[in-house]
């Protein structure tokens, strides 16, 4: 997955047709390898429902608020296909999922796919805003900390990294709500609306990743700045700004791409908490509401979709890393 660094041994990059074919084969190979992983993910997502204590039919009836008579339980068991062997149930479920039918919410009867699709744009909006904000914060902080090592700005970047890694997101969210919504009344605390609604949740979510970004960028910049081509650039008489922005930063950003895959896990996981606190109508809040009301098909659909997004995001990150760094051969595992 994206967190794994590919082997940096490599052949020189040749931009000819054979290279394009190699890229095509590599992508195809990765896509084929994805199939067993996706099957396993679907199996785990399906199996989750069987972790719930008690009969799933009874759980569904309770969630619907229906009476638990013997007849109703048996009817529900037949409706859910619970009398069939486990594997038969899984294959039937998988066949439906492949047609984008994730079942229906046991509370509202709304198709799960519809629920997820309606809520997904809000999560994407929040995650994108948080990611951009994190990059906007980390980029200058990481670069300046590397260029001005052991100065106050470098120390600030360290405090920021330590604070960010130790700060519970849900506590930060409550503090921000208290300060900016309750005390100062500058920003709305709950719901989704105009751009102002996005600020507090996006700041909270970005704080989970920005410190990591800034420290990684600093480390990567330090490494690049000590390399011979930077010395050459300086020797050529290029300005400090041109060296840093034109030469060093471009190369320092390459290893930075590998953490983007991990960021998706942070953003998806963090979104669950942040959306719940800020009543942000995304899939994270949908999932928490579904868990607390024992609406299992929704939870199942959410887990499956989250893993799918994560897997695809990691694949894209991995491919772009290889595309960005010509030193990396496109035939290695990853």
């Amino acid at each position: 997955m994206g967190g794994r660094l590919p082997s940096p041994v490599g052949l020189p990059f040749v931009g000819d047709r054979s290279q394009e074919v190699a890229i095509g084969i590599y992508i195809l190979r990765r896509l084929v390898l994805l199939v067993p992983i996706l099957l396993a993910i679907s199996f785990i997502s399906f199996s989750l429902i069987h972790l719930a204590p008690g009969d799933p039919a009874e759980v569904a009836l309770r969630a619907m608020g229906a009476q638990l008579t013997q007849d109703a339980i048996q009817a529900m068991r037949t409706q859910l296909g619970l009398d069939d062997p486990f594997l038969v149930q899984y294959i039937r479920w998988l066949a439906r999922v492949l047609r984008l039918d994730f079942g229906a919410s046991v509370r509202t009867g709304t198709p799960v796919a519809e629920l997820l699709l309606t809520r997904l744009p809000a999560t994407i909006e929040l995650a994108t805003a948080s990611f951009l904000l994190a990059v906007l914060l980390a980029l200058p902080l990481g670069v300046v900390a590397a260029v001005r090592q052991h100065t106050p700005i470098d120390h600030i970047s360290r405090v920021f990294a330590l604070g960010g890694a130790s700060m519970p997101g849900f506590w930060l969210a409550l503090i921000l709500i208290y300060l900016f919504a309750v005390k100062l009344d500058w920003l709305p605390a709950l719901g989704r609306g105009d751009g102002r609604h996005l600020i507090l949740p996006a700041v909270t979510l970005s704080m989970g990743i920005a410190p990591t970004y800034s420290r990684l960028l600093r480390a990567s910049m330090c490494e690049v700045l000590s390399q011979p081509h930077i010395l050459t650039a300086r020797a050529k008489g290029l300005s400090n700004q041109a060296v840093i922005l034109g030469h060093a930063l471009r190369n320092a950003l390459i290893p930075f791409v590998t953490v983007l895959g991990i960021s998706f896990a942070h953003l998806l996981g963090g979104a669950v908490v942040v959306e719940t606190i800020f009543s942000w109508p995304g899939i994270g809040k949908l999932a928490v509401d579904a868990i607390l009301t024992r609406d299992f098909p929704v939870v199942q659909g959410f887990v499956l979709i989250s893993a799918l997004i994560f897997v695809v995001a990691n694949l894209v990150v991995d491919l772009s890393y290889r595309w960005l760094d010509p030193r990396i051969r496109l035939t290695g595992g990853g």
Partner: protein
Amino acid sequence: MATRVEETRPSSSLAQEEPIRSGESPWQRLVRDRMALLGLAILAGIVLLVLAAPWIAGQDPVAIDPLNKLQPPGGEHLLGTDNLGRSIWARILWGGRLTLGTATAAMLVILAVGLAVGVVAGLQGGWVDDLIMRVVDVLMAFPSLILALAIAGMLGPSLVNVLIGIAAVGWVTYARVVRGMVLSVREEAYVEAARSVGVPAWRLALRHVLPNILSPIVVLATLDMGALLLSISALSFLGLGAQAPTPEWGRMLNDARPFMQTAPHLMLFPGLAIFLTVMAFNLLGDGLRDALDPRTRRR
């Protein structure tokens, strides 16, 4: 908030770079790292306080006293009282036992499973290794907090189920790291020698392999404890962990939300407790890593 140890994790240590002195033991390096010592001191202080809860809490953490509800900090109650008149000081101390206890228990389970699976995969090799690594790959394909949330949620709200959910996804990173270490240790001459004289596999693992991989694993575990504590508190905060009236830091923060306007101190202290504990683990973890492997020190 992920529970996984990230290989790319940067150091968050505030320690000033000091020259690496040759011939210095890891312990000496740790003692020279002021920030790691600060982490250790904070952690020791917190652990002592929560262990001393029965003697210093002063009040039953679940005893309701409506006449004294929402008292501000200071006065008769050191950290004030909540909406039911319960002492926040007592609830923080007793809650710390639960939060720290759950995180420690989760880490022990993760370590036990991760070490056992990793050692078996690394020593056994072949199809056993293949099978284990494929399971690890699949579990790593899930965003960890989400899978932990779903498992804990499906099992039903309770702190034990949060522990199960967190441990169910947490062991995979350790299994992978341990397997990698076992593979390299397996090639060492002393392990080869032990194997050649017929030392059984379990004895090989316990006597020769485990002692050699234990210190990096302890560093990983310390670094990971902060993230683990954050995940447990997050799930508790969402209502999946400890249930009322049990005091637990994440739960206390959630209970404080409706009183944000009238009694903001309710959310201040549990959050501060989580923050300080996680920071202490992070400082100590960074220090331990630097002490045991000076090559990983920040530039």
